């Protein structure tokens, strides 16, 4: 009793509430997005693509960072979302927002079904199963040329103006703002989710599955749920990509894309909600700059960057920021 009163710690409930409260650094990404719009008007296409990858990485963070599922097949959902939105738009359904919703819904359904089948396993087995799923979908998309355009890519995507007002222009202004708004919505949703009891129980499962079983949490059901939610979110990111680039190629269903988004997230920091916001931009801008300087060998520098990150910056960039902050605070 005495100890409890003397320690300046918070009660568990208060801790939860506080951690949910918005702190000022959380506004930084949004300020950056806003500033970039005015500061770098000729980089808006890159900016839009970065935000799409941020949203995609954010959805992966739910699966990997919060639920602890290591997957190489997350692009399955990105790809399904992209093809869904793309095929809709190519067949005359050019309204962007509903295309986004349908893309997310179909991807979520695929996530639910595959999640039910494969989430009984863990570790390498699960990793390989996710890989098998994305590879099979990729092959299916290649075979279904009449629907997807096969290896030539899906053509003829024409979008209506956003809200009937804003045309998707060559400089990518509309696309940039559109992506920013969708990302904002996605972020608010994920943030709510991980601070809700549901999100807390995910972290519990990641840390100690056996104990969560013991306290009676429906572990598998929750894993499948979060897998489906993340799939839907990834589908929205994919749909966004299909709409802003007005083209869908088979590469959206490749394990290379899964690998790329995994790298971006780990690079930024896993299970932190903001790893995606740090990792994707830095990785993509670095790749853009390196491939511009050295179109043939930029791979080397990216590889080196990854190795150095692992060796000297465990926990990604945000992990390092945390360490520095702790040292300064001490």
């Amino acid at each position, binding site marked *: 009793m005495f100890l409890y009163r003397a320690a300046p710690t918070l009660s568990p409930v208060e801790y939860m509430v506080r951690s949910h409260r918005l702190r000022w650094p959380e506004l930084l990404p949004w300020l950056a997005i806003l500033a970039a719009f005015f500061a770098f008007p000729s980089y808006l296409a890159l900016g839009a693509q970065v935000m799409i990858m941020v949203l995609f990485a954010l959805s992966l963070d739910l699966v990997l960072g919060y639920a602890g599922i290591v997957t190489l097949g997350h692009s399955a959902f990105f790809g399904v979302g992209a093809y869904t939105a793309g095929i809709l738009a190519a067949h005359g359904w050019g309204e962007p927002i509903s295309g986004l919703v349908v893309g997310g819904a179909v991807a979520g359904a695929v996530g639910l079904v595959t999640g039910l089948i494969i989430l009984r*396993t863990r570790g*390498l087995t699960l990793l*390989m199963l996710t890989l098998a799923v994305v590879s099979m979908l990729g092959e299916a998309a290649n075979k279904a040329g009449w629907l997807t355009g096969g290896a030539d890519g899906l053509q003829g995507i024409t979008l209506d103006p956003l809200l009937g007002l804003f045309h998707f222009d060559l400089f990518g202004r509309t696309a940039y703002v559109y992506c920013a708004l969708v990302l904002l919505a996605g972020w608010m949703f994920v943030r709510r989710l991980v601070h809700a009891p549901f999100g807390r129980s995910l972290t519990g499962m990641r840390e100690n599955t056996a104990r969560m079983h013991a306290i009676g949490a429906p572990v598998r059901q929750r894993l499948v749920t979060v897998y489906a939610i993340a799939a839907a979110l990834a589908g929205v990111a994919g749909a966004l990509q299909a709409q802003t680039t007005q083209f869908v190629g088979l590469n959206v269903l490749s394990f290379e894309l899964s690998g790329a988004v995994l790298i971006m997230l780990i690079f930024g920091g*896993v299970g932190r909600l903001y790893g995606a916001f740090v990792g994707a931009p830095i990785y993509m801008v670095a790749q853009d700059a390196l491939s511009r300087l050295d179109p043939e060998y930029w791979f080397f520098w*990216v*590889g080196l960057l990854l190795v150095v990150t692992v060796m000297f910056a465990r926990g990604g960039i945000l992990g390092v920021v945390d360490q520095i902050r702790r040292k300064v605070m001490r």
Partner: protein
Amino acid sequence: MHEFISALVSILFHGLAYAMILYVVSVGLSVTMGLMGFANLAHGVFAMAGGYVAVSLMNGLGLHFPSAVALAVLAVAAASVVLERLLYARLYGAGEIEQVLFTIGLIFISIAAAKFAFGPTQQQLVLPEALRGEVEVAGRMFPTYRAFIIVVGAAIALGLWLGLERSQFGARVRAAVDNRRMARSVGIDTNLLFSLTFALGSGLAALGGALGGELLTIHPNYAIEHLVYFLTVVAVGGLGSIRGPFLAAVLLGVGDTACKYLLPDIGAFFIYFALFALLLWRPAGLFGRA
């Protein structure tokens, strides 16, 4: 009937040749992953290095095929220990995620390095006269070199199996795979053991890379292009097993070939479908411990 049997012989022969290469490259990965739980996605880099070194020894120094391959295996095995001690060892305690990021980084570096050193075109192994041409197997003509690969692969599988079942080294490896902490507490130096198995695994990968250059072409993107196949053999075979990857490789090699031969239009699906079905049936792999 005759045609059916002839098709069957074709499938078995080519499937087995393919399976042997998959096995020789992947078995080391299975053991090291089982032993240290290290998710080494960059295993294919050693196979690729084996191929490149063997080819350069033959073309550059004019060595003969057997000595070039042997030297390549030794060189890659030695280099892998250096890499293991300098870099891998620092990540044994780290999570899967760090290991994945690190080994993907290594793959990227290997792609750029291989292209830098050897150019973007694929490397060709010049076979000795004795291994060219065709031989008769079961009343049909088949490429000599593939027959040679089957024999060598089977010999390696047998040697590994006997070696790891009968020798003290093998007993230690198996003990460490089963329970690393217990093995350590009875005095087995698991770090040394790991370095040795890592070298063995990388050396075998180099052998597979060099011998298999005809089947899995040696070029800069090797490690990423064939990664899925290697991982599939390991996952289906079961971690830490010697027999598992062999059976898995035969299953996948022959199955893949059969599918390409009999149902070519869905041939590309086979490997993924087999992976999916087998892992759902036996999540820990054919010979893995649950």
